[in-house]
């Protein structure tokens, strides 16, 4: 039975101190730590690896679950590659969706293609960082849109969803948005600068 720690709401370096305390008191072979921010994920991961644990991390809603399992030999190399690295070294992909269909030639084919594209984005895994919706693309984020369940699912996985406020306003859809944050051009441009790849659809 793994020790379970809930370190949400704790200011740095409390989560690491809590984990240290548990290791010293119980000397468990495995434990899980629930935290609510990326810095705590990084710090707890580093501490567990330092103490010869193999670490895996998963999102749990808006929080993160860091799970450590003791590596057999204490003299084993400390730096094990994380099977699910959640570090800041990971690539960030931003996708800009400029309308509610994909490609030109046939609009109903295009609409179906885009839904399929959005469904398949899950395959990018944690590298998918941000989805931006502008112009006609904002229609995908409002009530009644066939893309809504897919986008809500991605949002639940932690993907940032940005929906252009000016565009929502233009189409008179400002109060119909059901997923993501309403945002402005500055956030969109900043995202492009931070992203490692920007894909426009």
């Amino acid at each position, binding site marked *: 039975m793994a020790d379970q720690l809930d370190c949400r709401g704790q*200011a*740095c*370096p*409390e989560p*690491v*101190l809590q984990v240290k305390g548990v290791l010293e008191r119980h000397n468990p072979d495995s434990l899980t730590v629930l935290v609510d*921010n*990326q*810095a705590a994920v*990084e*710090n*707890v*991961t*580093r*501490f567990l690896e*330092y103490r010869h644990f193999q670490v895996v991390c998963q999102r749990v809603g808006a929080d993160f679950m860091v799970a450590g399992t003791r590596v057999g030999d204490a003299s084993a190399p*400390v*730096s094990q590659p994380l099977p699910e690295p959640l570090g*800041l070294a990971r690539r960030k992909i931003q996708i800009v969706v400029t309308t509610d269909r994909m490609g030109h030639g046939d609009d109903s084919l295009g609409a179906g293609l885009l839904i399929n594209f959005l469904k398949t984005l899950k395959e990018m895994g944690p590298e998918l960082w941000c989805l931006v919706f502008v112009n006609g693309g904002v229609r995908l984020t409002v009530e009644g849109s066939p893309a809504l369940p897919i986008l809500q699912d991605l949002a639940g996985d932690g993907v940032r969803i940005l929906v252009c406020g000016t565009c929502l306003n233009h189409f008179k859809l400002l109060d119909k948005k059901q997923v993501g944050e309403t945002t402005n051009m*500055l*956030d969109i441009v*900043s995202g492009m600068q*931070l992203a*490692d790849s920007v894909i426009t659809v």
Partner: protein
Amino acid sequence: MTMIPTRLTQAVKGAGCAAKLAPGDLDRALCGLDLPVDENLIVGLERADDAGVYRISDELALVQTIDFFPPMVDDPYWFGQIAAANALSDIYAMGGTPKTAMNVVAFPAKTMDISILRQIIEGGLVTMREAGVVLVGGHTVEDSELKYGLSVTGFIHPGGILTKRSLCPGDRLILTKPLGTGIVCTAIKGGLASEEVAGRVTRIMATLNRDAAAVMSHYPVNACTDITGFGFLGHLAEMVVDSGSGVRIDAAAVPVHPEALEWAAMGLIPGGAYNNRMFRGRFVTFAEAVPQRLQDVLFDPQTSGGLLIAVAAEAAEQLLQALIGRDITAAMVGEVIADPRDMIVVE
């Protein structure tokens, strides 16, 4: 009945310069502001330099800066000294001389005895006296979290202004204080730092950059900045981005508080380090051989760090020896290169 915390770091969430607003957020707040124009403004907000500089005459310009933050050490007297040294540092980094200062204070009067504020200000005065700076006033607000620092005014000759921006390929880079204070302060906050280590790092943070600035004024320095909340790589990036030059850093040569490396490996890293990495990480490439713990220290937000000096190659060794001769922990940490442009390569 007022409660007096015996350790200032236990009364606050963020420690020292690690409490700085995330650079991405700050950028969004400041980007595209419609700023007033004045032909006498030599260094203003758009240039994002260490201080503002305003010409008074052909011989004289005013330098202005401000710094304040929550405590990063437990003793109020040392907190005051460090916060003051940190605030004065920006003036020295521009090549100026600080002259007048005002206290900037946020104080939780309902839960902290006012004698603590008295000790903090006394600490600030120790540093100000050492720097030849007069305290001319201040402003205090009631707040749930303690913060202290200074607004500082100084003077400089318009021809002697050192900005962050004039790197020349071939310049050598010298750093004058060891890195790792953010990590050490996190360990202090966590109760894991010995008195000896806390004391040593505290004294270095409280040390003015005045002597280093005085030494460098005799040498052909092209650019200079001080290392504080954005970390070594964050402040270096401010010098490099859009400069047309790149920088190569010799990671092994960078002076570091030895305990900071061990504590970094243990994950005692302030959140500000991750913010700094997120904001500037894309301008930095690390060679495989640079261990994670050292990478973390290079992004670690510093409180009252040293000067990072870009000096012409032919004078670099002499400047280094002159600094060491004045008991300043200086080290040659890298050089300015032509290629890759606007990038920092850490080897």
